[in-house]
């Protein structure tokens, strides 16, 4: 069973989460549901800090043993830091997708855009329907 989706962040339909850190920056990762679908993450390709990414464009790549998947930026943003721990330990996404498995810290172009994403309750509903 996936872990509950924390209510302190927003979600995309592509199974990314974004958490506003309150200082003009936000963390991005993939959801526990997403890591459970991927299983066995063995490689993560991280973006370069400083890179500007439009909403819906690829931010990172996660690879499981058998699959290659893009991680999309839920909002337009600039990458300010990446989780370099993932280079040596990509499985952190499997074990702690909402915490230690974060992928990038970004500066959203427009903080208000986060509000257009899904709240935890809506995302719960989405994955329930997805699973059927």
């Amino acid at each position, binding site marked *: 069973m996936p872990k509950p989706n924390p209510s302190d962040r927003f979600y995309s339909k592509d199974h990314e989460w974004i958490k506003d850190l309150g200082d003009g920056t936000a963390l991005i990762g993939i959801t526990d549901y997403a890591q459970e679908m991927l299983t066995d993450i063995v490689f993560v390709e991280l973006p370069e800090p400083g890179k500007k990414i439009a909403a819906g464009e690829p931010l990172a790549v996660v690879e499981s*043993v*058998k699959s290659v998947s893009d991680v999309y930026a839920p909002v337009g943003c600039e990458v300010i830091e990446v989780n370099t721990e993932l280079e040596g330990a990509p499985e952190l996404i499997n074990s702690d997708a909402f915490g230690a498995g974060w992928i990038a810290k970004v500066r959203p172009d427009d903080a208000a855009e986060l509000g257009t994403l899904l709240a935890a309750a809506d995302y719960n509903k989405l994955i329930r329907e997805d699973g059927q």
Partner: protein
Amino acid sequence: MKKTPLYEKHLALNAKIIDFGGWAMPVQYTGVIAEHNATRNACSVFDICHMGEIKVTGTGAQALLQFALTRDLAGQKAGRVRLALLLNDHGGIIDDLTVYKMADDLFILVTNATRTEMVLHRLRSILAARNFDCRLEDLSHKTGKVDLQGPKAQELLLTQTDADLKSLGFYSFLKAQVAGIKAVISRSGYTGEDGFEIYAASEKIGLIWDRLLAAGADFGLQPAGLGARDTLRLECAMMLNGEDMTEDTSPLEVTYGWLLDWDKDFAGKEAAAALRDRGIDKKLVGFEMTGRGIARHGYSVYHGEKPAGFVTSGSFSPTLTKAIGLAMLDIPCAAEGTDLSVIIRDKPASAKVVKIPFYKREKS
């Protein structure tokens, strides 16, 4: 999509289903790495019902196969399995298949799922052109198959059969009851571990599957999907038809040169001999990633600035915990130790040619 007799069981086990050559097959149940490691360290069971089985009967059965296939079957005894190739007139591989000799006038060919139709077509056209006294029958839809693989496979299977498995040699088979069902048990597989391929009537194979799963808990058994099957075979550098070879591939370019018995005739020999005499200009080799990234099927490979070929199979290796693969490379770039770049998402990542197999089990 076509479904195997075990399809509903995969759904009940929460398997992830993919389209494999038109078949709805489980790619994984709990996870590729767990299933892979269970096979290397304990045992696993695979649904292989999608593979083809072709019966060849009659006094001319052996003569047909002896002519059609690359391998000399003259010395093959009943109860033995041989790997052989069926080539087209250009010397390309139609299928790499196994030949089960049941009796002097009865053989079963086990074919790759996606190649069964082509094998039948080729054998029928050889039969039409030459007069061998034999009949072909496609038993694929009537035949179920599960592979039980891993160091604990024999111990587990002995809970379900009285067959003398301990004296059954590699690439040998016998007829026996498994879970009370008439079956053929062959000591063979596609994982690099000890293990068995078990054949039974398609409507009965589910019983064998259920009994193995029920008894398997004590032996660390995992149901395993095509994902683990692929990483297991790749570590042993066993090729996958359709990925590492196509009908345009000569056995001489891949690791199958040893399957050509030049002392006898075989369909496609003329073209194969011409290539042998001319010399190959590309070759399948093993490589490992020395830079970051995982090479995948179809990625381009360079040697310096020069295009060298392409990746045919590539994956993360759960046993070696690094990225490995097979690539078809121009001969000047194919020597062991050659530095390569694999183009991953438009960027080069370093790799080098290494000896295969990547993994070999320690024989007990």
